[in-house]
């Protein structure tokens, strides 16, 4: 179904959605720093950033989440469950890479053997409105990682910025429920032509320069490679690349205890922290940055593909942009490749 939404109708459209749904969208916290947040007023929504700092994963898997509370009644601890999400939710303005990443996390959190109710509850209640990337950044490599700037998979509705209006596609049953939305108009043939042009331009810009294909096999042979002795050197061991990564999904569960009551909380955790692998005995199987950097890359490009037949990287480029020592994951991928271009180790790709 091909529809469109005039930009002047965007705010009323969102306002209208908010009556029925909890709306989550990109918001600028200060100039240059945006995150996905629950929206109180459509004016807050800011679609100007290609990629927010924190990815959309936190709408389904918050950085810190109370699982349940407990209270001591007599000698017994009594568990107080958290209230279920009541309202339906909309995630608006997420980019294809972030949406693809949610389906990657879903593979871990929703499985045959076990299911993470906290994630699933939010996922089931959420309709996703994706937004195509007309202007991918130079750090974007989604096409190399199996996605593309206009990947529809995972979105229920998909918006494409045509300048004066958004081209709107209804892709799933959840999306089709919007068929009669009063703000949508029927799209014209020229809109379709424009969509095609925008797609081609973005595809060309992103290109296929990073050899992600076949990386799982290459890494099979590299577990004890001297490659790891060097690649980690500049890493200072902060957690930016894992926290800002849309596919990283490790967490740590802690009890925040206040004598007679408390709460069990799960927080994002990072394999780059020495605490992550520290055992109770005091032994740490990943004692240095070398083992921890290896874990990060191996998990994304070897262990995850082994388990789920897909790399755990969507090529959003956040880890490249925000690393304080400018570790470039594209170079690490290139270094594993026998076909690496000359001079790639000098910092020019």
């Amino acid at each position, binding site marked *: 179904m091909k529809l469109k939404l005039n930009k002047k109708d965007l705010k009323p459209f969102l306002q209208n959605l908010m009556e029925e749904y909890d709306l989550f969208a990109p918001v600028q916290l200060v100039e240059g720093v945006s995150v996905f947040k629950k929206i109180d007023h459509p004016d807050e929504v800011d679609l100007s950033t290609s990629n927010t700092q924190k990815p959309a994963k936190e709408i389904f898997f918050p950085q810190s989440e109370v699982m349940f509370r407990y209270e001591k009644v007599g000698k017994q601890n009594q568990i107080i469950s958290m209230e279920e999400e009541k309202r339906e939710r909309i995630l608006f303005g997420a980019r294809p890479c972030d949406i693809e990443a949610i389906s990657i996390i879903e593979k871990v959190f929703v499985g045959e053997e076990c299911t993470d109710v906290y994630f699933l509850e939010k996922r089931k209640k959420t309709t996703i409105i994706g937004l195509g990337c007309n202007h991918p950044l130079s750090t974007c490599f989604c096409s190399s990682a199996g996605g593309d700037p206009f990947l529809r998979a995972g979105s229920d509705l998909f918006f494409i910025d045509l300048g004066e209006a958004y081209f709107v596609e209804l892709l799933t049953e959840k999306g089709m429920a919007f068929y009669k939305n009063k703000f949508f108009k029927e799209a014209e043939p020229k809109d379709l032509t424009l969509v095609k042009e925008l797609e081609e331009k973005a595809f060309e810009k992103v290109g296929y320069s990073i050899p992600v294909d076949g990386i799982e096999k290459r890494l099979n042979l590299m577990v004890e490679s001297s490659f790891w002795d060097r690649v980690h050197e*500049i890493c200072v*061991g902060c957690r930016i690349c894992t926290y800002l990564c849309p596919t990283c999904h490790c967490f740590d569960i802690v009890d925040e205890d206040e004598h007679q009551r408390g709460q069990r909380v799960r927080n994002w955790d990072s394999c780059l922290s020495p605490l992550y692998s520290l055992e109770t005995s005091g032994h740490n199987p990943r004692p240095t940055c070398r083992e921890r950097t290896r874990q990060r890359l191996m998990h994304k490009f070897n262990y995850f593909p082994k388990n789920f037949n897909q790399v755990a990287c969507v090529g959003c480029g956040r880890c490249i942009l925000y690393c304080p020592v400018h570790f470039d994951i594209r170079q690490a991928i290139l270094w594993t490749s026998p076909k690496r271009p000359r001079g790639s180790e000098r910092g020019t790709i």
Partner: protein
Amino acid sequence: MEERSKAIQDRIREKAKELLSNKTVDLIIGFGEGSLPLRTTPRFIRNPEKVGRLIWNSFCENNLSTYLHKLGQFKVGLVVKGCDARSVIALSLEKRFKPDQVFLIGVPCQRMVDRRKVSKAVPGEILRAHEQGDQIIVEGEDFKTVLKREDFLYPSCQVCIHRTPIKADVLVGDPVEESPLTETHPEIMEFEKKSPEERWKYFEKESSRCIRCYACREVCPMCYCTECFVDSSNPKWIEKGFSPSDLEFYHIVRAYHQTGRCSGCGACERACPMEIRLTYLTQKLNLDVKELFNFETGIDTEILPPLSTFDIEDKQDFIK
């Protein structure tokens, strides 16, 4: 500017080659070309034939002395700016390495350019950038902008009065004139004008963006505790979640632990992905330490920081 940088770069390479060839050091840690414009990356060089990978320009923003904690038994040649050299002195006072383990290649610094400020001054993504004279020329898909370098310097660089490394085994450029561009850190001036309530609000707003990635801690050469107080589970000083009090507690304690130890390099603020202002706190503490104890971090190779020592002459005004 770019000619001066080029001359410095040549001398860094020359010295690095010499130090590696005659085995004075096992490795050189300097700056290398980044894969994005306006960025460099720390570069570790062991082979004297590869010194051509070392570069120098106005984007060499990292404080490389943070890598000294990883040294082990190796000897290193470290490229340092004025502020980085001060961190090295502060670390040597805390006996973090053996005196003959570190060879300092000192660069009299031209003040570093704030890449985020540059990015915000142009209409699109920057794809190419270079320095020319006192200008930075940045280009994107459909724009080319010429910016005045002086308007885009890091706050910590604007107030710096120790650009020439105080201690270095070799200086690879002529010493520069030591006068600040502004007398007081611009954000401290703003901060001091505020009422206590407004100050608290500002601090609250800044720390509320914290994602606890601890990048500010990890890039700081002075943050090297085997176990940071935030990571300790017994005793547990702080929860790991996102209640404002925990975020604020982390930021206050991180700043206070730097008292008399911070060289004011600004690495913490540059590392923060959420662009939380941090140096107004640490630089204010630096000013207090200067005023109360007449001490500046990393200026003297013998005198211990005031909070590491006791002197009967110490000011005691705070005891009422």
